[in-house]
């Protein structure tokens, strides 16, 4: 199963035929496994990694460190939910260290993001403080180097 997940993580567009050959398992088995992985939400979604800058589509991304007061019985989870339900939030992590939650926000403009932080995020009960870092350049996304200058330098035919 790990092999299958690793192949799919790299490229989900591979055909069942190809996956079956590469993993040396019957097609039916691969098909059933994928269905099951999807049903069990081990495979959550198939995603495409896009270089938005190259597409000339403006986006602003900010990383916000959030300090919160955990709540009795639910700890950080209830607060986290109040934050991650906002569609502007791309990712949310609970972390150790000098703050509690790390929030990735995506908006159309600086103003957009600023407005979200000041009006929505900071005003949530239990949020003590926020520190916003605007992203200046993306070098690597989900394991993919954005502007990879390494080329195949090999000769066409070698012994």
């Amino acid at each position, binding site marked *: 199963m790990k092999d299958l997940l690793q192949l799919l993580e790299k490229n989900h567009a591979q055909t069942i035929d*190809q996956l079956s050959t590469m993993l*040396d398992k019957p097609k039916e088995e691969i098909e059933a496994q994928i269905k099951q992985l999807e049903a069990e939400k081990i495979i959550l979604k198939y995603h495409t990694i896009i270089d938005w800058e190259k597409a000339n589509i403006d986006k602003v991304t900010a990383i916000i460190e959030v300090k919160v007061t955990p709540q009795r019985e639910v700890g950080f989870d209830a607060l986290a939910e109040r934050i991650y339900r906002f569609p502007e939030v791309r990712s949310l992590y609970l972390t150790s260290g000098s703050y509690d939650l790390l929030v990735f926000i995506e908006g159309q403009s600086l103003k957009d993001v600023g407005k979200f932080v000041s009006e929505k995020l900071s005003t949530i009960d239990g949020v003590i403080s926020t520190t916003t870092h605007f992203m200046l350049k993306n070098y690597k996304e989900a394991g993919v180097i954005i502007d990879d200058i390494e080329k195949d330098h090999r000769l*066409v035919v070698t*012994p």
Partner: protein
Amino acid sequence: MNWSERISPIVKSVPPSGIRRFFDIAAEMDDVISLGIGEPDFVTPWHIRESCVYGLQKGYTSYTSNYGLLELRQSIAKNIQNNYHVSYNPHNEILVTVGVSEALDLAMRALLSPGDEVLIPEPCYVSYKTCVILSGGIPVPVPTTIENEFRVTPEQLEKYLTPKTKILLIGYPNNPTGAILTEKELLQIADFAKRHDLIVISDEIYAHLTYEGNHICFAGLPEMRDRTILLNGFSKAYAMTGWRLGYALSNPDFIAAMTKIHQYTMLCAPITAQVAAIEALEHGEDEMRKMMASYNCRRRLMIEGFRSMNLPCFEPKGAFYIFPSIKETGLSSMEFAEALLKAEHVALVPGNAFGDSGEGYVRCSYATSLDKLSQALERIQRFINQF
């Protein structure tokens, strides 16, 4: 001045590489998909490259011991001990060379007297026979066949044995066929070597790329350590071809003889590569396993691809080559390769570049991206459909 008159007859007697002409045609085209490349498509893992850069910053730019950095030899000894349970003394039984190619050349030069014969199972790596000739020896090719999955047997070797036979040179997993030998088969070869008191040079550069069972090290077989010259290197397992680094392991007296030639002709292997190689051996296992898993997926894809075209091929269990037969097209290997290149812009290597017994086959390397492999298979299928 007429230079060709002055070139040594022994060099003139060596034919140019069969790959060369082919390379010239392919280099002219810009949309060639090449299955003709005998090296990994991975760039050397970053942690290895990074350690080389760090080494340069720290001033590692000098000569090393003729034998190579002691730390590297210790790493090699540890690695061979852990993987194959054979122990070599890093102080006098290991020589670090400029690729396995240099190690092979040194071994031949240190062993051969004029007229000595070397048994070489074919198809084989392109330089084996030339190395023997340049050292004054006589290469004796021992043809292997697809029926036996290109594995050599004592019976086949026996036929080519003469009183002048001194060395048996084997390379498994094999370039170009992808064949491996099982422990049982290797034991038979070992028995043959012992019976006829032969030295065995075992080129195990593809050892880590073995897809079924574990690689068996020839020197690890009973009583074989003392008559074996074990060659290996970093090119294939760690995707470090251009670093040019290999090593030879053998008896101290013989390593001293090889080192004598090495110290006068090469002095030492480049220190930059040696520093990186220590990192590769000490921390390269994870990346190597990932690359191997990736080759294995592609290997299966290629076998399936050729079989569905009805081109007979046996299942290669090592290296990153597949060696299908193209005899049914009625073309020779060279004609097939040239016609395919011109019609479909797919480059592969005619099997006869690896010896006469490779005629009727082509070597396809699957060290190329999945996308390109799939495209290449489609193009080859289209080409085959004409026949």
